[in-house]
């Protein structure tokens, strides 16, 4: 008997036992859904973080008092007692780092209002203070006007470069260059605007204004820790520059030999690596949960198939009387359970991909399509899985479940005695 017939019979039996079929499909669907959902969401987050951190230029690392993120109170206490990286220290560092291509100094203030005439932004505009190299180390591009000059930084002029979101809000029509805007009460002259780079985690890439760091510190105070960004001349000198800057900063901050650094380095790579470290456990957890769910679903399929075999004993008897071989009956029931698990798997992949990509809507970051074959969303020590590979693996796994848990009921059906089966009522 051809496979096509088996499939037809399987679909028919799924159709006539609607409720039972739906419940079984749900079981396997939920298992696949949980794994695909979590993986897709993590893939989206990873996309977001990669496009987020890539706002740092190439071959660039950052030095801060605090690490990028920390998770426990113990960590918080440890870092809180560190001395700030003062502007003077940072300026000294800038003087001594001739090896680097750019050294940018940066301070931040968040949640401010920018206004132009009677148009106001929401109180969510980030106010950056940047040294002259800060524009370059942040990988920002001026699309209109210019950056501020050395002169303007030295003299702490009230000039501002504004992000694309602020441009859209305050100057929906006109040209902002040369106009005066008010940020947090003070007036600044707009000299340039930034290229729109799209959203990222937190969504503030365009929603900011950039002052000269001196202007920023005059307004918001000097008692704050400065972020230092260093761009190496090329990939080759990156590690040397990193080590050199470590030495320079230890000398400036008078860290005794043998003591650990009292500042943190990070780069795009370390941020991504750190993200992968944290999410790896979540992913492994999701795989574990999904495996348990799929095991439960598999047992569900087996249960359903056993009930189905018992219920259809008469049918099996008829089929055997009409000439069905053991293999015919076995393959019919096996096809049925594999089709069950496949349909469940497809439902799980579709809903899981949708759920996972809801995260991308929330973060306004690029979605991870289920057929995406370029970004690894699960990195294991042995193999990396892209979304497409993940989904194919899920379907193969579903077939395996269908076969493993379908074999016993199918075998039972195939070995029914036709005379007994025909007598069954």
């Amino acid at each position, binding site marked *: *008997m*051809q496979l096509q*017939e088996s499939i037809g019979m399987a679909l*028919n*039996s799924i159709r*006539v036992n609607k409720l039972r079929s739906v419940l079984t499909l749900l079981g396997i669907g939920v298992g696949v859904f949980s794994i695909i959902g979590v993986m897709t969401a993590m893939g989206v987050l990873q996309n977001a973080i990669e496009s987020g951190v890539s706002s740092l230029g190439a071959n660039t690392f950052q030095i801060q008092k605090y690490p990028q993120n920390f998770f426990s109170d113990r960590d918080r206490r440890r870092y809180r007692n560190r001395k700030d990286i003062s502007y003077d220290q940072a300026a000294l560092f800038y003087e001594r780092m001739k090896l680097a291509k750019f050294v940018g100094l940066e301070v931040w203030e968040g949640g401010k209002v920018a206004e132009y005439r009677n148009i106001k932004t929401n109180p969510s505009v980030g106010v950056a203070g940047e040294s002259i190299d800060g524009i370059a180390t942040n990988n920002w591009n001026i699309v209109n006007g210019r950056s501020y000059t050395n002169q303007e930084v030295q003299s702490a002029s009230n000039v501002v470069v504004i992000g694309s979101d602020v441009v859209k809000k305050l100057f929906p029509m006109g040209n902002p260059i040369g106009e005066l805007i008010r940020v947090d009460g003070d007036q600044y002259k707009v000299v340039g605007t930034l290229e729109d780079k799209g959203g990222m985690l937190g969504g503030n890439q365009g929603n900011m204004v950039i002052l000269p760091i001196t202007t920023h510190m005059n307004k918001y105070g000097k008692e704050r820790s400065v972020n230092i960004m260093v761009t190496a001349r090329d990939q080759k000198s990156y590690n040397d520059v990193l080590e050199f800057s470590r030495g320079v900063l230890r000398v400036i901050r008078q860290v005794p030999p043998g003591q650990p650094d009292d500042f943190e380095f990070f780069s795009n790579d370390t941020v991504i690596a750190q993200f992968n470290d944290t999410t790896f456990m979540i992913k492994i957890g999701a795989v574990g949960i999904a495996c348990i769910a799929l095991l439960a679903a598999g047992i569900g399929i087996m249960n359903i198939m056993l009930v189905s075999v018992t219920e259809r004993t*008469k*049918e099996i*008897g*008829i*089929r*055997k*009387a*009409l*000439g*069905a*071989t*053991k*293999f*015919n009956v076995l393959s019919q029931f096996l096809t049925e359970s594999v089709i069950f698990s496949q349909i469940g798997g497809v439902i799980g992949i579709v809903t899981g991909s949708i759920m996972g990509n809801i995260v991308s809507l929330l973060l306004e970051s690029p979605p991870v399509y289920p057929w995406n074959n370029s970004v690894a969303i699960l990195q294991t020590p042995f193999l990396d899985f892209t979304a497409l590979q993940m989904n194919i693996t899920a379907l193969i796994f579903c077939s395996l479940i269908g076969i493993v848990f379908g074999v016993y009921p199918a075998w039972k059906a195939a070995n029914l005695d*036709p*005379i007994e089966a*025909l007598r069954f009522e």
Partner: protein
Amino acid sequence: MQPVINIKNIKKTYIMGMVEVNALVDVTIQIQKNEYVAIMGPSGSGKSTLMNVIGCLDTPTSGLYEFNGVNVGDMNDNELAKIRNRDIGFVFQTFNLLARSDALHNVELPLIYSGMKKADRKARAEEALGHVRLEDRMHHKPNELSGGQRQRVAIARALVTNPSIILADEPTGNLDSKTGVEIMGLFNDLHAQGNTIILVTHEEDIARHAHRIIRVRDGLIENDHIVENRVLPGIHS
């Protein structure tokens, strides 16, 4: 001429718990092509066992069973399935149609297992349904058909493979007497067209449609005789 069915000294013993039950003690029968035979006997006589053996649903414990000259006793499950599929058309008392499939698909079923292509088997099934005058009920499910119509679908299913024998087990047992007469008329027609028919029944009236009656009792052939005054059904369905 080689008989279709050649049964020699077969014995069938079941083991039920610790007790051996001799369902068939010593049975010898020959049935020729285009015979119309009724097998009769009270319940417990071994008539059902004999029918199962003839239908290749079961194999005898000892003795010889040749079907079209081929020894069935040596066959494995798959070979038996093949014989049932190609050479035996079953008609059951309870019709035994697949409840969820329409008449056409029910008739197609044996052809599916013989590996016939879809278009061919559809044509064959339609032809068989036409033979039992159910052309207009092809897409009805069994529960949308009357008892007589269901049995006609079952007969079409038995005919569709052009089997060597049609084996009917109490085919009128679940039908009222008028419909029963119609079905018996159909069997008479089939016989007249050259089919070999074996009818298993305990009703004398039904058995008297056949040309030959074999009476079974206690696992032995009690009597095997030609019917003198056959019943010819007055109404042809």
